[in-house]
């Protein structure tokens, strides 16, 4: 800024302050624009973060956070002493790992295949249809799945019964639950997941394919040696983001399919905290569980980000 160059180096704190005020007034619109967002952040993000201290207090809803008594790590002792907690921990991590291994590659394969399709009309209609389930709520997807897989009058079981004579308890067995979650996740999100890969596929230089054709590569070799390496960096970023997300399974999907018959494998942190905290009103205990989850999550995110940086260097140099 030419104006700023005329101003001589500030010597005293007073001068520095004055310069700062002049600067803020000059940029007042930009700073004013930040204010509503900061107010929102303070109230709805940072106040609840402060509220986490009830994990260390004997919280009473009538007394409030301030007036409740400090009791230290008592609730954490209680958390680590219950078997429910460890079951929940195991279920959450197992489910996330399953999603990582199965749900992660599906959009990549789909994107590679969509990219090879020559007909733009087919491509566009296919994409429109594949993205559709992403926009439907888990409540509706859950409702559709529940009716289709029902043992009494669901389409799938009617067909299975006709063929084999017996039905499959998709919804009411603990053993089927993880498959149910993986399957419905693929149905709802795999198509939508292709967007990011298709975007980076479209950025690959076409000359690479032409050169490969001249060298005598076939279609499959081109996919393997050009397309896949072309999106490798996006894949690694997605993988790392997923790794930082291992403690999270999302409430709504799990809650839709959870019932007393499959609770052994369907109880994850989100549903456990909801039940203990809101239904049993054990606020401090469930906040302690939530805090444990958040801390593990942060450690995972930090590790994942380190990994991203290492991988980033590996791919760029």
């Amino acid at each position, binding site marked *: 800024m030419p104006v700023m160059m005329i101003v001589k180096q500030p010597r005293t704190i007073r001068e520095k302050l004055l310069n700062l005020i002049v600067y803020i007034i000059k*940029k007042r*619109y*930009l700073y004013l*624009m930040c204010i509503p967002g900061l107010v929102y952040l303070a109230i709805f993000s940072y106040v609840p973060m402060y509220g986490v201290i009830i994990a260390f207090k004997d919280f009473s809803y009538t007394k409030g956070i301030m007036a409740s008594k400090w009791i230290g790590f008592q609730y954490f002792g209680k958390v680590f002493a219950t078997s429910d907690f460890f079951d929940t921990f195991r279920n959450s991590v197992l489910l996330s790992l399953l999603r990582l291994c199965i749900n992660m590659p599906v959009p990549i394969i789909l994107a590679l295949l969509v990219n090879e399709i020559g007909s733009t009309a087919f491509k566009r209609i296919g994409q429109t249809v594949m993205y559709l389930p992403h926009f439907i*709520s888990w*409540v509706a997807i859950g409702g559709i799945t529940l009716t289709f897989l029902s043992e009494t009058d669901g389409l799938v079981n009617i067909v299975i019964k006709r063929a084999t004579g017996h039905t499959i308890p998709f919804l009411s067995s603990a053993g089927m639950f993880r498959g149910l979650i993986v399957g419905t996740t693929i149905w709802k999100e795999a198509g939508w997941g292709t967007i990011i890969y298709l975007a980076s596929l479209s950025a690959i230089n076409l000359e690479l394919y032409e050169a490969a054709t001249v060298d005598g590569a076939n279609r499959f070799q081109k*996919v393997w040696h050009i397309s896949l390496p072309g999106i490798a960096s996006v894949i690694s970023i997605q993988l790392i983001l997923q790794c930082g997300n291992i403690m999270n399974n999302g409430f709504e999907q799990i809650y839709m399919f959870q019932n007393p018959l499959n609770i052994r494998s369907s109880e994850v942190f989100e549903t456990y905290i909801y039940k203990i905290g809101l239904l049993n009103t054990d606020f401090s205990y*469930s906040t302690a569980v939530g805090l444990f989850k958040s801390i593990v999550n942060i450690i995972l995110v930090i590790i994942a980000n380190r990994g991203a940086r290492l991988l980033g260097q590996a791919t760029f140099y």
Partner: protein
Amino acid sequence: MNGVVKLSGKPKNKIKLRVDDKAMAIICYTVVGLFSLLCFLPFWYVIVYSLEPYSLYLKQPEIPWPAEISWTSYRLVLKYGLIWSGYVNTAFLVFVGTPLTMTLMIITAYPLTKKDLKGRNFILTLWVVTMYFSGGMIPNYILVCRTLGLKNNLWSLILPGLCGCYNLILMKNYMNGLPGSIEEAALIDGANDLQVLIRIVLPLCLPILATLGLFTIVGYWNSYFNSILYIYKPDKYPLQRVLREFIATDMVDEVNQGITDVSQQVNNFTAKMAIIMIATLPIMCVYPFLQKYFMTGLVLGGVKE
């Protein structure tokens, strides 16, 4: 087969299609076609089942068209009061929440694109932290219900999730990708930052505004989780909550209330299908029109600075 091969080949390419081209075309069209069908068929079946009487459904559930069309299910479900209060509540979320979210997102994202703005990194950090750490379910519940007293108030479904950091960053990255020279020219001509944002930056942001606008509308339309935390009065339920209650607890008796003739009543199964359709149809109708913006909006927004 001829048609498929013709589609996959480049028209200018006079060389005969090779075996691997054919094989690739077959694999691609089959897999993508089947997956698309899999995404679409369940919704189609829901429409079919909602229209045909339950007894006919049981005979041949796999036939993808109704054996007999009857609108009884829709007629009865639409008389059910909670559907309408659900629609009104959800409409409130969409029409009040979306403008608020978009405005907050725009005015927050724009200053964050100014890399030389003092304090900008600090504010950005404050936002990014919320992506990885949050107070969690219970402290949020205490804030909304006890401190703010918003229990059973529709604002409790809007305010806590007003502006997500992820979408904010998409918006910011998109704005970063715009040519800065026009903005500078306007500033030199004497426009202030607010005028630059409204007159110059926003018109260029149409793809990302459409994308994030759609995400926001869909988010409000589909919102369910917050309602089980904060809403305990049935007449304040948003639509998805009504749908869930309907699916989970068989509420068909309330729909059939006052209808003594059994043949005029609707079956639980058919009523569920109809209510699923009623609760999702508006989104299905809106989204194809905004789809063309996704690619541009998301691709450019995803670019890192």
